């Protein structure tokens, strides 16, 4: 593997604790979402990012409060990493009126613009050009904002990926494209359908970009590459394309038992669980078991409180159906 180990100085202690806390929160949230599905309280589909937490956490911690996040249907973690409400997110998964989108979006479309979470997009590849557009807007407004766009390995084979990269380079846009290579599309291994071994990193040179391949299960590595790429974009240095190797612990979506994956591969990647890896590293760095345990307990409490909030919500309101097509709040198409 051509992992380009970023030249990290020691990541600061407070940052490390923050990275660990965020990863644990994202893990506990996804696990709770799965439990609520088993209780038949989450009705629609959902795509969990269990195992991929280091990527969302690394970027989430490195981003400025007014930066933009664009992500996919596998986007609970990226939305929450910006500070969106867990209770509103769980309520949205459960189709409640107190959901983040009042029941109109669902699991695949979590959005919290106030926190810079500019949407979760469920048509593969669509949000790459949209993220480029937000970066174009930041560029001409001279706001210093950066757009970060997360997507999967499968997304590198759709036209919008290539259109967005070319435009971003030609216009030197402040956007970071982060490919979360979890080795699979839905069920098909990415290598079976892709012309190159590393679906994003090996394409970077086609756009004059540096080839960046990193360990997506290492929160320090992710935080470091996030700082580098965001910093470059903010300084006017243009876009980056990052390929982060990772693995989803479960199936593609809630209906998928993921039996197409070799057992040894699953075992190897579970051993590289980003949270286990990072916990060990914190202990080695002299952070005590008590402090780590405290972070874990607080994350559980936060998810429990969010669950109570979501369960307490009434069903989505039927009068929402004909609201918010247009900016005047209506859905009127005639006089």
């Amino acid at each position, binding site marked *: 593997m051509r992992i380009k180990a970023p030249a990290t100085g020691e990541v600061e202690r407070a940052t490390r604790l923050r990275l660990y806390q965020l990863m644990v929160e994202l893990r506990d949230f996804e696990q709770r979402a799965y439990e609520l599905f088993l209780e038949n309280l989450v009705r629609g589909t959902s795509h969990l990012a269990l195992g991929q937490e280091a990527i969302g956490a690394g970027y989430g911690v490195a981003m400025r409060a007014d930066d933009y996040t664009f992500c996919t249907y596998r986007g609970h973690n990226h939305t929450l990493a910006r500070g969106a409400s867990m209770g509103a997110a769980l309520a949205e998964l459960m189709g409640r009126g107190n959901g983040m989108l009042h029941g*109109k979006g669902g699991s695949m479309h979590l959005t919290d613009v106030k926190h810079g979470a500019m949407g979760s997009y469920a*048509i593969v590849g669509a949000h790459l050009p949209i993220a480029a*557009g937000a970066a174009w807007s930041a560029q001409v407004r001279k706001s210093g904002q950066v757009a970060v766009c997360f997507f999967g390995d499968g997304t590198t084979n759709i036209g919008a990926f290539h259109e967005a990269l070319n435009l971003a380079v030609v216009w030197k846009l402040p956007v970071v494209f982060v490919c979360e290579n979890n080795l699979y599309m839905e069920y098909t291994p990415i290598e079976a359908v892709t012309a190159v071994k590393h679906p994003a990193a090996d394409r970077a040179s086609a756009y004059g970009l540096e080839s960046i391949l990193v360990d997506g299960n290492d929160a320090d590595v992710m935080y470091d590459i996030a700082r580098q790429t965001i910093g470059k974009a903010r300084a006017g240095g243009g876009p980056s394309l990052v390929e982060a190797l990772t693995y989803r612990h479960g199936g593609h979506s809630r209906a998928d038992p993921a039996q197409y994956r070799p057992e040894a591969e699953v075992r190897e990647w579970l051993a590289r669980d980003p949270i286990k890896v990072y916990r060990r590293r914190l202990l080695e760095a002299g952070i005590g078991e008590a402090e780590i345990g405290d972070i874990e307990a607080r994350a559980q409490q936060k998810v429990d409180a969010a669950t109570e909030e979501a369960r307490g919500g009434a069903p989505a309101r039927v009068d929402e159906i004909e609201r918010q*097509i247009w900016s005047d709040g209506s859905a009127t198409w005639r006089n």
Partner: protein
Amino acid sequence: MAELSYREAIAAGIAQEMARDPMVYFIGEDIGAAGGVFKATVGLFERFGPDRVRDTPISEQAIIGAAMGAAMTGLRPIAEIMFSDFLATCWDMIANQIAKTRYMTDGQVALPLVIRTANGGGTRFGAQHSQSLENWAMAVPGLKVVAPSNPADAKGLLAAAVRDPDPVLFFEQKSLYGVKGNVPDGEHVDTLGSAKVLRDGKDCTIVALAAMVPKAMQAAEQLASDGIQATVVDVRSLVPLDTRTILGEVVKTGRLFTVEENPRLCGWGAEIASLAADECFDDLDGPIVRITTPHVPLPAADVLEDAAMPSVERIVATVRKSMR
């Protein structure tokens, strides 16, 4: 009043809005120094510079996606898709992303953007450069759809589209680009969602859009010499739809004819016919008749294209036969 061509009126409308609002940016293929393949954007690059009038690669998804991302973060972009036929290459951006994101997020984002595109036949370009696709857009909740028939409306409705807080698909009819007409001097802004009664007659109401409007007007003149007095309504905007004006004119004459450039199935006239049947049934004195292109791709040869699209002669003959 100044006499401008339809293409000059488009450029004047864009210029008026770019001068008024520094957040208006304009992107598309060959729109800058080249002035657009239809010369509808001549002079903008020189006046507003390469940052605000920006050439793009041939990347329709990137053009429309960039416009969306910019609109949700503070700009008011105008994006050009050279031929409306190419909307098919970025329909995901339009129908799935732009049209739905405000609704799905329950109003967290606004998308004040305009997609301009050259639409329609009459230029012998063949089936992939001649379609009339307003009805595709009309079928998707979340898009406003406008198609002007003359230079004054082209400028005024374009200005209104740029100022509108929601996404507007603006269909410019290719065969009209050279047509001249008077355009009001100074700032000119029209109203979306307003149809216009262009001619008053007591016997029947002919409802038309874009390039079909001048044809309907000519047909009405010929019908008048036969003793049939036709009202002509220019729909101008399919979404929002000015049903008050359109159905009001149907009620007055008791007869409705639509003239549509699109192929037969699911054309915009079908929706108007359905509304009239629902809401004006007791006022109708005869069948509602739709005059459209047959349900075929547009052929290239001049004789074939002319015979396929609704012509003045076909409108006259159809109305005459039905009114006998």
